[in-house]
């Protein structure tokens, strides 16, 4: 993991507050994303269950439809080409709508019938009952197929989105937040150290000042001993030295 570094920032109080607010933001974002991921996973599992049910049903429906095709063939003979040649436009069409789940738009397909039945008179002289049965069976199969298609596209889309969201959640949890925390840590340690340095400096300065004061005191006492008046400061007015005029 390349997260051993921290954000390059000049350690200051303001940086510290900034980092603190960033951490709060990251944590909020993490919890929100986690909620989104959970909602998506819930929906994902529901879709998975539905897909399994639909696929099993599909198997049965297709078997039924294929059998009714065999029955129709028994009575009518080979009617494949009759159906194929009479195709003009689609009788069942598919519309796609959008469904929104936790911010993810999923496509949903619904079928609708369009136009009248162009095979109404097929099998008029032979096998009309079989033809209507097979029409019903295959219509049911097509409906199921459309439903299955819509379920599967949502499955795939959801899968992608869940992966992305989980990646983001993990990134925040294991990279961003630790990094911010480390930065915060660093700032705090730097600030502490600076305080300590400051403290030390102050102490040193104080010590030095004390030493200078001590020396000055000794000098003063010496001067005092010599008779120089050191208690009162020098009076400028008494001093009658003529200073030279300053000429520029």
């Amino acid at each position, binding site marked *: 993991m390349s997260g051993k570094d921290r954000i390059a920032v000049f350690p200051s109080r303001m940086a510290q507050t900034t980092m603190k607010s960033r951490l709060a933001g990251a944590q909020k974002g993490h919890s929100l994303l986690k909620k989104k991921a959970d909602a998506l996973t819930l929906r994902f599992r529901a879709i998975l269950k539905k897909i399994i049910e639909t696929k099993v049903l599909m198997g049965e429906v297709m*078997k039924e439809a*294929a*059998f009714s095709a*065999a*029955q129709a*063939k*028994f*009575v009518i*003979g*080979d009617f494949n*080409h*009759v159906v194929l*040649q*009479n*195709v*003009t436009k689609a009788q069942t069409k598919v519309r796609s709508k959008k469904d929104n789940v936790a911010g993810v738009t999923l496509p949903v397909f619904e079928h609708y019938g369009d136009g009248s039945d162009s095979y*109404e*008179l*097929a*099998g*008029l*002289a*032979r*096998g*009309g*009952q*079989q033809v209507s049965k097979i029409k019903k069976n295959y219509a049911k199969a097509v409906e199921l197929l459309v439903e299955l298609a819509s379920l599967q596209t949502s499955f795939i889309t959801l899968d992608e989105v869940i992966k992305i969201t989980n990646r983001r959640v993990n990134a925040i949890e294991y990279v961003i937040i630790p990094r911010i925390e480390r930065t915060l840590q660093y700032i705090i340690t730097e600030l502490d150290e600076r305080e300590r340095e400051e403290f030390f400096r102050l102490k040193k300065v104080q010590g030095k000042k004390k030493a200078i004061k001590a020396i000055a005191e000794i000098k003063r006492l010496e001067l005092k001993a010599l008779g120089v008046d050191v208690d009162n400061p020098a009076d400028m007015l008494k001093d009658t030295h003529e200073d030279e005029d300053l000429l520029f």
Partner: protein
Amino acid sequence: MTGLSELYFNIDSGYLEGLVRGFKGGILKQNDYLNLVQCETLDDLKLHLQSTDYGNFLANEPSPLTVSVIDDKLKEKLVVEFQHIRNHAVEPLSTFLDYITYSYMIDNIILLITGTLHSRPITELIPKCHPLGSFEEMEAIHIAGTPAELYNAVLVDTPLAPFFVDCISEQDLDEMNIEIIRNTLYKAYLEDFHVYCSELGGATAEVMCEILAFEADRRAFIITINSFGTELTKDDRAKLYPRCGKLHPDGLAALARADEYEQVRAVAEFYAEYKQLFDGAGNNPGDKTLEDKFFEHEVKLNVNAFMQQFHFGVFYSYVKLKEQEVRNIVWIAECVAQRHRAKIDSYIPIL
């Protein structure tokens, strides 16, 4: 006079009748069907078929076998046999055999008309045509754009032209639903065939007229039943009933007025054989459907045709029985392939 025709029959058609009876002997029996029904896979089926008259017809097919391959090969055998018979036939048998092919020709023409209307390339359509119904002008169909053009340019030269003339005018061709054209043609064909057989006289007329009358009545019943709930009006429906059956004229008039299944059944009550067929039929699971009963009756009539000698009906019956056999085998094959053994016994037993 029947006596004379029997004497002279063998001169022209003796060899062919013998051939057909030989072919008929090879039709699958109940035993064979029992064996086929026991098969678990299509390869088992192929094995069982090898011991019948079909022999090694599937020998060169690559595995895995599919039902459509079996279907094609079975049909091919029938086509080969029929064409052999046709090639050796002379008048009047050759015209009779041509009449048999007209029904396939009608299906082919309808297929070509629909395909041309929807601008499909002709090369796609030709392989889908039934081989028994091919005619010389088939390749030329694509030059026409509308059915009316098609008729004027091409169909007028085929043997089916008279059927078009009798009942469909040029405008009708363009407007009518393709199924209605198909059924109108078939009606004209049946009536014409019936007239021809009656002219032939003798045992042929006896046997064939009965079979064709049944076919006509069966079509009338089925068209009526299937047209409930569709946009087909009663008048249009009445125009599709072939008039060469027992139902003409009263039964057909009654059928034309019928609105539901019970009324159709009531019409059938007046005719002894049809009453029987409607009695056993129903739509509940476990019942035979009406179509199944019709098939059984047709098979019975066709088998009875072989009881008499020196007539052409045997050829027609052989073709129909062989077709039914192909349908039976394909049905059993589908049930085996789809592992749906519930209704595997719903084939129509022939012998």
